[in-house]
């Protein structure tokens, strides 16, 4: 047996199948080798129960015709049939595309609005702290409540928006915000943007606070007008902060369910159906859990793709963050 520099004993593997006193003696003599395993055990067990086992379970069910109403179907293995069926399912791909569109629009609008808000608040000297707090109010509400609120705002009969538009004489008939397919999508995105723009605003504001003044002054002396300073200096400096916000929000939006479920529940005629409302409908209402899990696996890949994309952007942008001063 050799003592290594790390104090760990390295030797020939002990014979297996020891029992009783032999096992105890084995543990005693190999205590140092077991220590790291014991110390890591809680973390490993937690990961196993929280992540690995549910994942394995859902992966298995996606390979079965599992229906919640007939538990015994979980034992029938049907291979990739659920997935094959999905690839031929136009409704699913429509929801998939709609989710990507939803993500793209919501994230970009939130980024632009958040940037404007952050830039404005950064300019304020008096009452900045209070505005920062007020700005976070929308984040304090449950998405379900936000959904209900906007459902009533956009209601075509009693909604405050139509009421206002008609009182102001902008339109003389009720606009069916949540009934028309396009307008319904717009309404949902509006609610989503209202609720989450402050995530961008807060992170971008943090970026503006952290921004050194010197490069901006250098750029002004170098011949930049205010727009060029923003375009070439401020914005690149803020991008890592934007990518952090995008990473967080892409996960949020990719699993958007509550607001949609409350406001339109995927309607009218599936025109606002996103991946997760479709998965929930398939899994819980139609009780086809095997099929739903197959969908969930595909949408998880979508989430990972978005997150990975923003994360690589973030890592690339962070490279130069140390060179600011």
């Amino acid at each position, binding site marked *: 047996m050799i003592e290594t520099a790390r104090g760990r004993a390295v030797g020939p593997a002990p014979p297996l199948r020891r029992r009783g006193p032999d096992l105890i003696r084995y543990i005693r003599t190999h205590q140092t080798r077991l220590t790291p395993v014991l110390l890591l055990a809680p973390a490993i067990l937690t990961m196993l129960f929280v992540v690995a086992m549910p994942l394995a379970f859902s992966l298995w069910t996606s390979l079965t015709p599992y229906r919640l109403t007939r538990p015994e179907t979980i034992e029938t293995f049907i291979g990739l049939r659920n997935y094959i069926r999905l690839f031929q399912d136009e409704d699913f791909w429509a929801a998939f595309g709609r989710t990507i569109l939803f993500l793209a629009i919501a994230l970009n609008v939130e980024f632009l609005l958040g940037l404007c808000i952050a830039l404005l608040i950064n300019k304020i000297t008096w009452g900045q702290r209070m505005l920062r707090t007020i700005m976070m109010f929308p984040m304090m509400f449950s998405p379900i409540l936000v959904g209900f609120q906007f459902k009533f705002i956009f209601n075509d009969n009693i909604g405050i928006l139509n009421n206002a538009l008609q009182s102001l004489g902008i339109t003389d008939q009720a606009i069916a915000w949540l009934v028309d397919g396009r307008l319904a999508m717009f309404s949902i995105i509006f609610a989503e943007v209202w609720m989450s723009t402050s995530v961008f605003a807060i992170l971008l504001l943090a970026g503006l606070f952290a921004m*050194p003044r*010197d*490069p901006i*002054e*250098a*750029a*002004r*002396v*170098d*011949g*930049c*007008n205010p727009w*060029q300073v923003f375009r*070439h*200096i401020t914005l*690149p*400096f803020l991008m890592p902060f934007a990518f952090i916000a995008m990473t967080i929000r892409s996960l949020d939006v990719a699993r958007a369910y509550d607001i949609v479920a409350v406001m339109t529940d995927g309607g009218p005629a599936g025109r606002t159906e996103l991946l997760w409302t479709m998965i929930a409908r398939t899994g819980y209402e139609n009780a086809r859990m095997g099929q739903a899990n197959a969908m969930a696996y595909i949408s998880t890949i979508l989430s990972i793709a978005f997150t990975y994309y923003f994360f690589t952007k973030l890592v690339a*942008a962070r*490279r*130069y*963050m*140390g*060179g*600011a*001063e």
Partner: protein
Amino acid sequence: MSSISLKKVAKSYGRLEVVHGIDLDIAHNEFVVLVGPSGCGKSTTLRMIAGLEEITEGEIHIGDRLVNDLPPRKRNISMVFQNYALYPHMNVRDNLGFGLKIAGQPQEVVDERVREAAAILGISELMDRIPAELSGGQRQRVAMGRAIIRDPEAFLFDEPLSNLDAKLRVQMRTEIKKLHHKVKTTVVYVTHDQVEAMTLADRIVIMKDGHIEQVGTPMEVFNHPVNTFVASFIGSPPMNLVPATVAGGQIVLSDETRMPVPRRLASYTHDGMAVIVGIRPDDMTPVGHGIHDSGETANLSLTVELAELLGTETLIYTRLAGQEVQGKMFDPRDVHEGERLPFRVALDKLHLFDAASGRSVRAT
């Protein structure tokens, strides 16, 4: 490559005035150093020239243009900042070429000029690195490269060397001097380090509390300081300043130590005048270790309190009329604390200041 002139320039922040109507004319291709302790308004003055601070009162001309209301980008000046202020997300090449690109120069011109500037500063191998991957000295070079590349009317330096370590600072100081010989341009350079000021400047502007105390060549401000502030600020170690009175053609210190009033200053003094005597450490040496008795000299006997060996010379801390003063021993031998040494003072280099105003007796 223009002259710069400041006329009664003042700067206030709210009610607090930090620069009080200063006048300064900087000639074409001149290297002017603004020097002074922190808070004296030197950086503010520079930033007003750059256009980064608004001018509260007065006028600034660059060339023959009044630039008071011009934004920095229209003043055609380059600035090197204390913290380098490189663009962190651009590599060295883009940092250098940014100003030209913004000015709408064609890519070939930009490339050519970037290559030239990089060659002048010896940073050609660093072109693809980003600032985070550069050392302090390299960043400083890039910052200077960015300044020279645009061929501006003037360079402004805002304490460019204060973030570098001592050795590198000396090295870069020489390089700035060489650069100015190579790229003839008007330079305004701000520093709090009087050594930098002395070594670099064609003319030094010494500032204090928002006023200009003295403007002159390094030799002028060193040999003829107009007041005690300039006298103590320029020169290292600083000039010894000891209060005294003039009586019967003699300078009498508080402990009755006497030395004659130097001949060249005699006409400026009168009996009973309260003065401050200024003696540079170099002009107060132990007998036989520096000053020869050929000139106008006086002798003192002083006790060594501390000796600092510098190799070619030894700094001797002693006490004159109850006040700590420093002398220098050239061609040194060993001295020990408490040793009583005869000192010789070079009277022809002695300074006298009016005790009340602090101004040189020659100036009043």
